[in-house]
Each structure stands twice: as structure tokens, then as C-alpha cells.
């Protein structure tokens, strides 16, 4: 490598990762390719490289999260970044501090990169206007959750050579799902066919405009499908009257062993945490064609890749 200057594939066009809606196919491919190489680090006895030494990352979690938070924290540590954590509970947010003030205080502590999870759509966009550092969206309300979609796509890529013509269906509460939205943008950009399936109360109106197929029938969605991604059903949606009962939801939209028998090549994914016996029958979760746990492993690698590709560049610094 020495004399080839910089092996110059251009870095990402974007400075932040707020969502996949504006990311090009090339940028997404670059992230996935980089993530595949970072996976090797996770197999080593010493799972740590010095790549981001001296870069400070702040994890701002305004909403409860287990796996995304853990996955980001691990990715940051594996790359030797300095990490500060902030969660809404036990912070001055509970004293009424605004997001803008919180963010500017954190920025004043010389943070290069912020990872934010917030229950309001657009919180990550808003943050980019408050601070000079790089912002990575770890889920903002029902808007986007780009790193989840990227890890989903990396997991699919392990089983299929191309996204061109790949048939993916996403099943469940599409309206409230940032995971579904990010996956639709990412998968469409790479040429996959996406079908959305769920009760009409949980499907947004005019969603077809995103270039996806929509159906209210599970058997129709699974026909010719390569990957079925079930979404977590938030149980509080029942009290809002959006579906009658968990049992009825499972009857209509739950994937069972019978579906796996009918579709012998179908792979099952889920962003977690799974309601066993609701979105997926319990034996489907544990089935060999369920690739839910490889999604988790890929999550760390994808976040390492995103951090590496977006970490502060010269001229970006406020100072």
C-alpha cells in the first residue's frame, strides 16, 4: 500500500448519519464493506484497535435502550475512543434542561462525536444545528434508526450476494417504526423489493409512495419472500385501540413454524427485543433460519464502521 496515495475511495459525502433517506447506494455499500472488515477485530483474542485514539464520543440517550446503547459503547471501546455516557434519568434533563442546553454543555466539554437516541423525530437533525461535532442518530422517535437498518442489511448481505431483486418483507407496526423506515430507504437504494405488511391501523397512509408493496395479509407478504423481518409490537398500542388483542395479532401476523415449512428458504429477522409468541412463535425465534443473533453481532461491526468513516476530519473542528 505504501505508495498508492490514500487508496483514495472518497469518504462519505455526508458529515453526519441522521438517516438513510439521503444516503446513496455507494455510501451504504462503503459502510457495509468497512463493517465486514471490522468484524475480524471482533474475532481476535484482543478485541481492540487504536483507530480512534484521542477522539471523544458522547452517547446521549434520552430514551431507554439496552442493545443499541451497549452496541455503540462496545464499538467505541473496540476502536479506543474516549467515551462519555449521558442518560436522561439522573441528569439535569429531569430538572428541566432543554436538549439544546444539554448539547451545548456537552460540546463545551470538547466532544468530537455525539450519538443520540431521543423520542422526538428530528432530534438528531436539531442537534446538528446546536453543536459543531459529528452527529449519529441512534433512533429518533418514529423517524429513523439508520444503524439498525445498516446492521440488518449487513446480516442480509451475509446470506445473499446482492440486494438487486432481493425480496424483503417487513411485518408489524410500520407506522411507529423507525426501523422499518430506515430499512425501506436503505433497501430501496440498493435495489431490493420491499413489502410492508401489518394491520391497516398500523400502516401509514400513502406509504406506497416510498416505492414499496403493501399488504394486509401475511401469506401474501411471504409469497416469494427471501427475508421476513418482524417488528416488535409495542404493547401499549393495544390500549390505544390499534389492534384488538395479542392473540388475534399473532393469529394474523405472527410467523409460526408452519410458515417456515411452507417457505423452505425464508430467513427470519427481528430488531429485538422479541415478544415471544406475538410477532414470532417461540420456536421460530430459536429456529436455525432465524438470524436474530447475527444481527446483534453485526451491530457492533456496523457501528465501528460508521464511527470510523464519520469521525472528525480536519477543518471540521470548532476550535
Amino acid at each position, binding site marked *: 500500500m505504501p505508495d498508492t496515495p490514500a487508496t483514495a475511495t*472518497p469518504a462519505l459525502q455526508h458529515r453526519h448519519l441522521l438517516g438513510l433517506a439521503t444516503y446513496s447506494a455507494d455510501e451504504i455499500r462503503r459502510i457495509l464493506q468497512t463493517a465486514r472488515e*471490522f468484524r475480524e477485530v471482533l474475532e481476535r483474542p484482543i478485541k481492540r484497535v487504536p483507530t480512534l485514539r484521542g477522539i471523544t464520543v458522547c452517547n446521549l440517550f434520552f430514551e431507554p435502550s439496552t442493545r443499541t446503547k451497549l452496541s455503540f459503547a462496545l464499538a467505541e471501546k473496540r476502536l479506543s475512543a474516549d467515551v462519555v455516557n449521558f442518560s436522561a434519568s439522573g441528569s439535569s434533563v429531569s430538572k428541566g434542561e432543554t436538549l439544546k442546553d444539554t448539547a451545548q454543555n456537552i460540546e463545551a466539554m470538547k466532544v468530537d462525536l455525539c450519538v443520540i437516541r431521543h423520542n422526538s423525530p428530528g432530534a438528531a437533525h436539531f442537534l446538528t444545528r446546536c453543536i459543531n461535532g459529528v452527529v449519529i442518530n441512534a433512533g429518533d422517535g418514529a423517524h429513523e434508526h439508520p444503524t439498525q437498518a445498516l446492521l440488518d442489511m449487513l446480516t442480509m448481505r451475509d446470506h445473499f450476494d446482492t440486494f438487486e431483486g432481493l425480496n424483503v418483507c417487513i411485518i408489524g407496526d410500520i407506522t411507529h417504526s423507525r426501523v422499518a423506515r430506515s430499512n425501506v430507504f436503505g433497501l430501496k437504494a440498493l435495489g431490493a423489493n420491499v413489502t410492508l405488511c401489518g394491520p391497516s391501523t398500523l400502516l401509514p397512509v400513502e406509504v406506497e409512495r416510498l416505492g414499496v408493496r403493501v399488504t394486509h395479509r401475511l401469506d401474501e407478504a411471504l409469497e416469494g419472500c427471501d427475508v421476513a423481518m418482524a417488528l416488535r409490537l409495542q404493547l401499549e398500542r393495544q390500549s390505544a385501540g390499534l389492534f384488538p388483542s395479542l392473540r388475534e395479532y399473532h393469529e394474523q401476523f405472527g410467523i409460526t413454524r408452519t410458515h417456515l415449512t411452507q417457505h423452505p428458504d425464508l430467513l427470519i429477522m427481528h430488531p429485538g427485543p422479541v415478544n415471544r409468541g406475538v410477532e414470532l412463535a417461540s420456536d421460530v425465534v430459536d429456529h436455525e433460519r432465524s438470524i436474530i443473533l447475527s444481527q446483534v453481532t453485526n451491530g457492533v461491526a456496523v457501528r465501528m464502521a460508521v464511527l470510523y468513516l464519520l469521525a472528525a476530519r480536519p*477543518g471540521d473542528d470548532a476550535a
Partner: protein
Amino acid sequence: MEPTDHVKAHLMTAADLQRVLDRMARQVAERIDPSADAAATFGLVGLQTRGVHLARRLQQRLRDDDGLTVPVGILDATMYRDDVRLRRTRPQVKPTDIPFDVTGRHLVLVDDVLYTGRTSRSALDALMDMGRPASVHMLVMIDRGLRELPIAPDIVGREVPTLPGEEVRVRLREADAQEGVWLVATDGTGARAG
């Protein structure tokens, strides 16, 4: 060649490369303990990307000429570079695959061009994170001088004194359309990578 290159000299032809590789294979063979099992105690580590091709060619020669089976590992030192903060572009991370335990093994690090020594420094750090080799030696096709770190090669194909605005292009048929070594001048202000 890159589009902005002006060729100043054709340093080595394809035949020169073959001859020099033959000689370097002899020098590697001299370092292998004849009483030990080379497959278990020795290893070549090629640096991405052209160092890997050179390491494979050396492996072939050691097998054909000396009957020695020597494993080849692939190393990408991008994650260990010291300039992540300083560059606008991010170098593509390439695969690393070392199919043997480096601990206790005698290793030869193989690269095409030795320049500032920064890539070699990264590669050494990467190897040390994987275990504790018995020894690490360094083999390069071209040593172009202008070191910025105290790094010295053990086996050198050819020493070529160069100037900072120049680049040495080693081209191998496994990766490129041509084969040979060229000295070029570049227009660009390309950062010093290796």
C-alpha cells in the same frame, strides 16, 4: 500508473522483478531453521495489497526450490494508522487474515515499498496485538529512503534514493495490468502514506 503520474524512470522490468524475488527467497530460506518444522515455526505476513502478492510469490518459490511449506498471512494496518484525524478521506479498510498463531513464530513482514516507515510501524503494532512473535523481520521490494521513524528493513530488493515529490510504483500482474517498477513524479499533493 495513476492518471497524474509522469514516468521518470523504468526501475525494474518484469524479468528484473523475478530475478530479485528469486534472490530474496534465498535470503528468506536462510533464516528458516532447517531442523524445525517451517509450517509451525515460520510465517510470511504480506501487507495489503501488493505485499500479499509478493508474499505468495515467495511462498511458491520456497515450496518449489526448498521444499518448505510456509504459511502466508494477510495484514491490513489501516486501523493502526496514526493519521485518522489528519485526513479528509478515510482509507478503505481491507481484510486481515492471519491463519496461524503468531506467538512464538518467526515472521517476515513483506511489503512492496518502504518509505516513511509509518505503515511498517502500524503493521508491527497490529502484529503485537495478535500475540508475541519470536521475531519479526522486514522484507521490501524497494527501499526508497526518506524515513520518518527508526525502521530498518532486513531484506531489500533494491534501494532507490528518491525525492519527496516522487513516488515508486510497484506493479504486479496479480493486481495490475503491467508488471515492473517505475519511478514517477506526481502532480497531486498526495499525503505521504507509507
